[in-house]
């Protein structure tokens, strides 16, 4: 019988994904494109929020990569509004990963400075585990999902650089405990801003857009 030998590996299984994400991030930074990974549950209003943010952008060009398991409905909506958009269909996969985004950025070929919004697959779990080349993770939560979401999906709230609380116009009609939500969110993430918005009415999005524009312009100032 042959002898067994132990070999130390200590290698992160996400290593290759992280390497590709870093390459994409560097490439986008060089091109002056600030990349926002938009995460949220199905029906949270990710596309509607992206549209509202874009409507409120004053100084930068928006680009969008849409991630869906199937269909190009959201891409059709965005394209009709004149926004340069590329659709990814994962065919079942529950999140976007770095190789998919590297290829999508190649296909989209954004040709000027701006903000690239990447709408991740509707899911509060897996997207938070994979970097895809973003400068920032923007999480969209909603009052209709309930105030316990930071406690049930802690990683998404911990990793977020900003959180949008969408459908806030429905707050008077449902039992949403804002204090409980905020307490859980702040325990996980003391720094990230929280914006109360309604993609239906447009309320609150001018502040989100202004904040993102400052970040995007900061990227180019740092680079120039």
């Amino acid at each position: 019988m042959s002898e067994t030998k132990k070999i130390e590996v200590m290698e992160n299984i996400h290593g290759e994904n992280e390497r590709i994400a870093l390459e994409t991030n560097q490439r986008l930074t060089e091109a002056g494109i600030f990349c926002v990974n938009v995460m949220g549950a199905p029906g949270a209003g990710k596309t509607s929020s992206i549209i509202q943010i874009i409507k409120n952008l004053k100084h930068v060009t928006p680009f969008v990569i849409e991630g869906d398991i199937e269909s190009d409905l959201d891409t059709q909506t965005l394209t009709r509004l004149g926004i340069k958009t590329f659709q990814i269909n994962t065919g079942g996969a529950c999140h976007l990963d770095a190789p998919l985004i590297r290829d999508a950025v190649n296909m989209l070929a954004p040709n000027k400075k701006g903000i690239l919004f990447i709408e991740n697959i509707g899911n509060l779990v897996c997207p938070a585990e994979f970097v895809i080349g973003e400068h920032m993770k923007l999480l969209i939560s909603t009052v209709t999902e309930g105030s316990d979401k930071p406690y049930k999906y802690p990683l998404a709230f911990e990793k977020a650089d900003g959180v949008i609380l969408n459908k806030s116009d429905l707050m008077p009609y449902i039992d949403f405990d804002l204090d409980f939500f905020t307490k859980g969110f702040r325990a996980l993430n003391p720094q990230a801003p929280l914006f109360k918005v309604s993609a239906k009415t447009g309320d609150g999005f001018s502040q989100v857009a202004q904040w993102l524009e400052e970040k995007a312009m900061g990227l180019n100032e740092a680079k120039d």
Partner: protein
Amino acid sequence: MHEYPITSQIVKIAGEYAQKAQAARVVKINLVVGDYSGFIGDSISMYFDILSEGTICEGAELSIRKVHPMLRCRSCGDLFKKVPFSFECPKCGGEGGPTEIGKEFYIESIEVE
């Protein structure tokens, strides 16, 4: 579904290390998987048997060490085990913030022959 691509990555990394060591086959892979890594050990094991077929890892035992998430109290600095729906420090009642403990997802070592 979620564990499928990640398991092929495990087979690939273990295979590369085994080949570098000029081993004939991998007999064991020692994985460390935090409860907050988002990956389920049983699911990885299920895919592993299928994905390792015909590779240097075929037939290897997959040993998975799980790590429970720990929070660090922002008041007293103690590390404590996370329990559902609470961030409260059992020692001083302060608020616990997340740490990297519980998010591990790496191959610690492989055993080859």
